[in-house]
């Protein structure tokens, strides 16, 4: 497989310069490196500029509803836990509309890789504020500036039980590609938050902004150190890139004896139905 093998005949509808191009490129490159054919894995897409990627990729795709990609992915994973499942979602999608699902998917440690396009704004609905926006950010829906403080998705993921928490930048495709590959190879729920400039509706969190405010985690950071990871993700001025937190914990699917050997979808059906009647006699 080469990168072009994953592309449909539709050219992306994103604005020129959109960070989504970088994420799209990193995703395709990561699959080439994983050696995945289009039928070797599945992607569940949320709704938004991020989810519109569904039309541009040749793969088993499920273009879900706004906010609901994670529960669709959880159901799919339970049905066929041997199939790698990736979720491509947006910040409003996953941390706003689907915020409850995000928390509970972390708790369950379902073996899913979540890739969130975090541009701190709603692009597809033409520029309203996202839950990741900095307090005071002015948008069409918050002309006087957003009153709420920003959600901290990485801190939330770490504290709610995600076992692989990382942050990438749409402007650094090789680094993001490696994070994605690491997330696929991790057994458990992986959250990869991708800082993604929206060139049309967010004039503050630009490529330049992220180049000035981010730094790459080096070997001095121990991803097993939860407190150190939390300290780093709480800093809004110096934004870390890399694997912040990693823990080995049984996945949801590994905890189910029913599917210890075969997946639900491949298991033969052999219930002794008449014995089920005994309790009703």
């Amino acid at each position, binding site marked *: 497989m080469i990168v072009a093998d994953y592309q449909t005949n539709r050219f992306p509808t994103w604005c020129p310069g959109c960070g989504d191009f970088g994420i799209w490129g990193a995703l395709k490159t990561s699959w080439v490196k994983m050696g995945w054919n289009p039928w070797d894995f599945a992607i569940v897409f949320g709704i938004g500029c991020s989810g519109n990627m569904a039309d541009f990729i040749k793969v088993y795709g499920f273009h879900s509803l706004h906010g609901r990609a994670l*529960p669709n992915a959880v*159901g*799919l994973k339970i*049905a066929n836990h041997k199939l790698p499942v990736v979720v491509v979602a947006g910040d409003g999608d996953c941390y706003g509309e689907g915020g409850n*699902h995000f928390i509970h998917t972390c708790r369950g440690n379902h073996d899913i890789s979540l890739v969130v396009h975090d541009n701190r704004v709603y692009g597809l609905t033409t520029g309203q504020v996202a839950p990741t926006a900095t307090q005071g950010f002015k948008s069409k829906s918050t002309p006087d500036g957003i009153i709420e403080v920003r959600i901290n998705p990485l801190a939330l993921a770490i504290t709610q039980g995600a076992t692989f928490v990382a942050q990438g930048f749409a402007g650094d495709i090789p680094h993001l590609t490696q994070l994605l590959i690491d997330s696929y190879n991790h057994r458990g729920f992986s959250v990869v938050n991708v800082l993604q400039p929206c060139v049309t509706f967010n004039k503050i969190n630009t490529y330049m902004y992220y180049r000035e405010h981010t730094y790459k985690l080096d070997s001095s950071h121990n991803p097993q150190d939860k407190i150190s990871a939390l300290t780093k993700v709480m800093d809004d001025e110096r934004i870390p890139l890399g694997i912040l937190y990693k823990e080995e914990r049984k996945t949801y699917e590994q905890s189910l004896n029913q599917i210890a050997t075969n997946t639900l979808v491949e298991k033969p059906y052999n219930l002794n139905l008449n014995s089920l009647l005994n309790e009703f006699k």
Partner: protein
Amino acid sequence: MNNLPQQTLTWKIGGEAGFGIMTVGLMFSKVSIREGFHIFDYVEYPSLIRGGHNVYEVRVSSNEVYCQERKVDILVALNQETVSLHKDEMKDDSVIIYDNEKTKISATDFAPSVILLAVPIAKIIKEAGASLVMQNNVALGASCAVIGFSKETMLLVIKDMFLDKGEQVVKDNSIAATLGYDYVSNNYKDKFAKKLTPSKTNDQIVLTGNEAIGLAALASDCRFYCAYPMSPSSSLLHFMAAKADECGIVVKHAEDEIAVINMGIGASYGGIRAMVGTSGGGFSLMVEGLGLAGLTETSLVIFEGQRPGPATGLPTWTAQADLEFLMHAAQDEFPRIILSPGDVEEAFWLTVEAFNLADIYQTPVFILSDKYLAESHKSAAPFDFTKIKIDRGKLITSGNTTDLSKYLRYQDTSDGISPRVIVGTKGTYFLTNSYEHEENGLSTEDSSQRIKQVNKRARKLVLYENNLPAPNLYGDMDSDITLIAWGSTKGPVISALAQNNYVIAGKTVNFLHLNHVWPLPRKAISNILSRSKKRIMIEGNSTGQMGKVLRRETGVVVDDYLLKYDGRPFYEDEIIDKVTKSL
């Protein structure tokens, strides 16, 4: 059916929550079926964990029983409140079993022929050194002795019900029940006129509507059940969860009903049969997901157990007021099928059918039940599992030799059903899309593509309608009056008519029962109703929802309504009164 005179009675026990009313009620039902009788039981309780008034009644008969009875033959009062609330339900020759040291009974409240049978339940328990929680077993023993059920049968039921809790639990319960049984045998032998003689009915099972649905789901190869607790659907979640390990299925209690339906959709997309369950309030949260299943053409079985609403409503009571909600839930138009079983047998077989329909038509299929059916036990012949045919529809599996290189997920076929490939099948891939899409699944806003897909989806329902079975008509085709009901109201109507041989006040009466409630078998219904002279619609809501749907779909106007929306099921006498007054 035997030719002996019908033997029948209604037994009712009341007490506080926490007194083990539900347990003793089910034990009484099981003793009854093992003594060769049919039963129907009905419970009333408030939405509380402790306290409040719980009532469990069992109607026992040598013939099939379809519903609860207003009057009781044996009332077991475990507290004072039971006497005061139910003293007007006595028949002339009824018995009240009560603890004379705890409960005061005024003989003037009752006809002289009513037998006041004092059993010092608490004292018996105390003298035996047993725990007061065992008083329900003393009551069971006393009841069985009054009726003439065998002590051996009673003790076998206790053993079977408690064996998984250990020998000691079986022993404690057995001792208490025996004490109650012996007390009545020694002190009140043969006082009760309606003693039952063991009947010869073949082996039966006794189960609730929810248990029948759960059993059918397992028998239909459902491999994933997802729910969020809500009365009266929770007992289905508990049943499925208890069976998960043994049956190798996965049961998930998700974070909310939005997640529930989306996990169900995800699992079905993954290739397995999936079911989700809730009540009307939870289904309100699922509505968005219903549309997702409709547009993505994902097979899904949705169980909805109705209770009175809106909002929190009356959590532990019954209703039939969600029909129009389910018919119209979610924006725009897409095919859906709603089945509404009338009793435990229909609950079983319609669930089997629901899974096949979901797979064949690749669309959501509802099982619309209610608290009355969900939690009432009925005796039934054991289900014949060999009659189950699993039909997964146009499913292309890896074993098929179909060329997948040109596969189109939403292919515009003549019957509207596009062949389906399970995600992960090698050699192809496709997009399952919540946006309107082309045949290949990619998004489109093109006018002709949109029209093509809307029409394709709509054709699926046309095919279904052409294959719909005719509704059941009970009684003679040509009768003076036709009663119409859907879902669980079947029981009281059938019972009211059967005991009057389908003649009320000199008029012949028949009964049209609808269990395929959306879409309706329109032609068959209008053929039947166009011949009836007077039509009375009986349903558990305040606006006559099915009556309105019938008018819209068949042009038939019903002449009169019997509506009930107080959370209680219909009673036979209400139906007979309605027919009598409508003449």
